[in-house]
């Protein structure tokens, strides 16, 4: 398996990388090179976009990143899967709060459609080149992006019997 996997690592130079706790390869391209890096993986045999999500690191800036990667508020996490090589790669892209815009993967993987809409809905990251970037889970007229850390958790007041009414 190592012989098969070597070419991927050679083909994408100058992208900071590391290995995660679960043994998957991690790649940290910047936003400009992200689409290109994914495209190269697709050519190298990563047929499937297994998952795409985002994390809001507000309030937890001190996470472990390889040298040369500047932490930003949002991080886009893309899980690629190669069925031919039985291998997973995780690509983590730093996305700043101001102008949170990333290239869409829709032209490479049609399966990115719903996942990117979910990331947009939950975090407000916009994907340029996405065909229909609308809210997917929340109502269309919802304000805010609920999985952001500064979006409060709602609470419903508990109703008690014989509690004094509002007046």
């Amino acid at each position, binding site marked *: 398996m190592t012989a098969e996997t070597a070419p991927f690592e050679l083909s994408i130079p100058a992208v900071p990388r590391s290995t*995660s706790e*679960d043994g998957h390869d991690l790649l940290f391209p910047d936003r400009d090179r992200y689409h290109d890096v994914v495209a190269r993986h697709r050519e190298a045999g990563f047929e*499937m976009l297994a*998952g795409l999500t985002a*994390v809001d690191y507000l309030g937890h800036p001190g996470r472990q990143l390889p040298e040369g990667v500047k932490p930003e508020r949002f991080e886009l996490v893309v899980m690629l899967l190669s069925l031919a090589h*039985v291998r997973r790669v*995780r690509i983590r892209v730093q996305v700043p709060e101001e102008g949170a815009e990333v290239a869409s993967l829709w032209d490479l993987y*049609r*399966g990115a459609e719903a996942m990117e809409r979910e990331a947009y809905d*939950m975090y407000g990251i916009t994907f340029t080149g996405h065909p229909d970037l609308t809210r997917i889970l929340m109502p269309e007229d919802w304000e805010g992006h609920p999985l952001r850390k500064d979006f409060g958790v709602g609470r419903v007041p508990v109703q008690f019997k014989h509690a004094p009414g509002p007046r």
Partner: protein
Amino acid sequence: MSGPDTSSPFVGETFEGAQELGSRHDTAPDELEREVGSVLRLPESRGVDSGDIDVERPDDETMIINMGPQHPSTHGVLRLMMELDGETVLRTKPIIGYLHTGMEKTAEELTYQQGSTNVTRMDYLSPLNNELVFSLATEKLLGIELPPRAVWIRMLLSELQRMSSHLMWLATNGMDVGSTTMMIFGFRERELVLGFFEKTTGLRMNHNFIRPGGTAADLPDGWEDDVEVILDNVTSRLSDYDALLTGQPIFHERMEGVGALSADEALALSATGPILRSTGVAWDLRRTMPYLAYDDVDFDVIIGTYGDNFDRYAIRINEIRESVRILWQVLDKMPPGDYRVQDKKVTPPPRARIDESMEALIHHFKIFTEGFKVPEGEVYVAIESPRGELGCYLVSDGSSKPFRMHIRAPSFVNLQSLPVMMHGGLVADAVATISSVDPVMGEVDR
């Protein structure tokens, strides 16, 4: 059209835009491509070029109708916008979110100890798989090794769950194509499995039984006999299903060649599970990226050829047989020992110890008030749920609550292949095709 012109003071607040469809000539080519190609999703293999779009065609020759979210055959609150040309379905757009309850946000408010009560409610037809993937992710961050009995108990439950989920699917699919007998049969056999779950975990659904660190309890006395009864019953009744459905001409007419998907399309759309396998791709995470102890058991990965509804039916019914085969091996190989890891920081002490040991009391108090702390890091763990790749992406900031928990829900992703399957089919087959995707809306919307 482009909404009200708010710059003009003469436009009333009730203006809702022009009420007629404009001519296609008026739309810019890339906008038109967006509109006909993807907003109502068209199959990738028949992907549109802006040159191919017929700008002369008026938009009123086809009809857009809405199916759901209260339609009984949409398996919950799935809503489909379908463009019909007579009886033929052209484009479809699934609209979801009616059951969205923000479970990923809720997970950030719960400790790892409480987390499995949350995830178990996502895919309500296979709750134990949800608990399993969350527990595996937490354990990977903790870096703990499970005792073998815990691993095998999890395998036992996971395979029983796969059986019950597929039986439930056979039941609802039978009902969708008009066989109420199959519905009664499927629910009857599923009841056997749920009865065993009730005996083991205390609940028929939403068990919260598989937890970080092992399972909540050991298997009940005499569990081997119960499982044997289930396996014998299901095996003999699977041949009843064959007699009822598999060889039946009406069923073949309804299922064969309907909702076909090619392997390339399935891969491009990230479809996993029976949908991907029905197209001939032998991808089953239990085999290709084994977790638990799936290395140590024999089973076959069932694949199809045509990627149609009948293949997906055949795969599911045969996967029940493979689960039966795995379960017989689990019965043989179940090791003795602990059912959870004996790590005082993670596992609460037994009740009896609390009366006699100060440390046990402290650990108990700490675990239940504050939860155990999980080292910083992020992991992605995926397992094969009955619907496909069920993944959990977990980020920890070193506290006792997940910083971020994302569930890669197979139904959510598989739903994208629905427009491709339905394209060019009859609206009467739409119900059977929706059913063959096996979406569980609790998991789609989370």
